[in-house]
């Protein structure tokens, strides 16, 4: 059964149709990439899945449950986590505290006025585990706002991971990064997908990253689905090539 099922979803802003009748099924354990030229509606589509926006029409189910109208926090509780194109972290707090908040919330402690010594120990251990995984151990006490872009992104991904999601949504994880940072983040995503069998949907502009990582690719253009398939199929698709060459020629 599909973990995420998007059925005929549309989003209008006044007379502008940002997403028009898009459907997508993501199987558990799959890594799905969404690509498309600028203004194709990728981020809007993402916002519909994560609950940042509500669709004008259509239906979204997660693990068989209708979540179309559910608020973001409730989608998170059901196992959906996301990162943003422009990194969303707590810049004035250290890496450790950023992760601590995520770990505590994930552990059901958000309203807790008190932590037992044991619970605190478990939380600390989990923070260390996440920092190691994200390559952040040596920056634990640095304010996230002072870190390099790649480390901020890694912090954001680790915060999302702290939630133990069943579906991870990554909006342009390598946006604005240098080659080394792009490589590091790509390896991290690959590791999460391969080793932890995490289901991931990502938007990405860097085609090397997309073709390296994705099991399947969906192409959006002008708010509508243009093609869907394996990286090999998409690479050979003429309509896709035309769409990309078209925008390249226009730009």
């Amino acid at each position, binding site marked *: 059964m599909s973990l995420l099922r998007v059925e005929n979803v549309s989003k209008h802003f006044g007379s502008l149709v940002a997403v028009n009748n898009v459907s997508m099924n993501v199987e558990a354990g799959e890594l799905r990439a969404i690509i498309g030229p600028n203004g194709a509606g990728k981020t809007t589509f993402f916002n519909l899945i*994560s609950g940042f926006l509500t669709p004008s029409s259509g239906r979204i189910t997660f693990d068989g449950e209708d979540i179309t109208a559910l*608020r*973001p*926090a409730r989608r*998170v*509780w059901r196992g959906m*986590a*996301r990162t*943003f194109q422009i990194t*969303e*972290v*707590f*810049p*004035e*707090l250290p890496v450790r*505290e950023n992760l*601590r*908040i*995520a770990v*505590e*919330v*994930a552990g059901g*402690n*958000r*309203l*807790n*006025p*008190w*932590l037992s010594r044991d619970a605190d120990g478990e939380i600390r251990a989990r923070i260390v585990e996440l920092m190691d995984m994200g390559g952040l151990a040596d920056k634990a*006490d640095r304010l996230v706002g002072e870190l390099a872009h790649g480390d901020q992104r890694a912090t*954001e991904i680790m*915060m*999302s991971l702290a*939630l133990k999601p069943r579906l991870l949504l990554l909006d342009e994880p390598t946006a604005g990064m240098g080659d080394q940072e792009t490589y590091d983040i790509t390896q991290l995503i690959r590791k999460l997908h391969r080793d932890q069998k995490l289901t991931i949907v990502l938007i990405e502009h860097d085609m090397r990253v997309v073709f390296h990582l994705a099991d399947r690719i969906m192409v959006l253009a002008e708010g509508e689905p243009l093609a869907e398939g394996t990286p090999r199929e998409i690479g050979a698709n003429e309509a896709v090539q035309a769409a990309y060459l078209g925008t390249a020629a226009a730009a």
Partner: protein
Amino acid sequence: MRGDDLKKGASTAIVWLLLLAMPYWLPAIGGYTELGARVVVLGLAAMSLNFLLGYTGVLSFGHAAYFGLGAYGAGMTLKYLVPSTSLSIIVGTLVGTIAAAIIGPMIIRLRGVYFAMVTIAFGQTFYFIAFRWNTVTGGDDGLTGWQRLPLDFVFGQIDILKSSVAFYYLVLVLFAVATGCMAWLLRSPFGRTLLAIRENERRARFLGIPVDQHIWISWVISCCFVSLAGALYALLNNFVDPRALYWSQSGDFVIMAVLGGMRSFWGPLLGAAIFVVLQDYLSSQTQNWMSFVGLFFVLVVLFFPRGVLGIIRRRAAA
């Protein structure tokens, strides 16, 4: 981290030494005990406001409403209901807290200036009720004809009416309980979700924090302690008038918090001390004392956005 904790511990110890010894050193430098009690009461109000402003990132411009409800609640309990100071404090605090809990759901979805405006509007509503309802509240003349009463204990009586020092220590005990609660909450997982909301509401939401619910709780806690401050304020003066509910009183609390430093726990207390002392000194010199307070405020905000405590900290760090 260690050094930071040590510094925090040291500053807390200094604050408490100064507060505990206030009735002994304040008269020596030309003050008087009631002035000290005023600083502590208004300091509690400003710190309560700062629980919401500095630690949740939500600006209320209507905290005087709950301060005033606490004050009227306490005064009217003593005047109409029972001659008990402790009950008057409890009733005053409850009245303000319940009002805040009911109004909360109507405002917590608003952000920024909209939130501030609506809190003012609710505050003004209570102000006009107190102002117009002459027969019960005493209207513009204020609620008079009552006073705080000695506290009865099993082992004897403490006369907080005649002894201003005894009253000061009653205020200080309640101040300790209230600020202790706030400090403890801020160090808890719940407190950290408030920081998360202040730092980045979108990220907080997408970590699974129901932001509106947490803001409501923070709002109610903040208003609860500001109501307590209001009840103590009424007992301090043996008098309440509608100005305790007026929007400019809310503004004073914001000024105290920002003046002292809203990113620090004790900052608003320092801000209240500066405000109260300036008011006490300047208002005996000139009617326009508020313009001098205002000028000082503007200078601090322009040049020291982290408040007076921020200046002291930077000096200490350098």
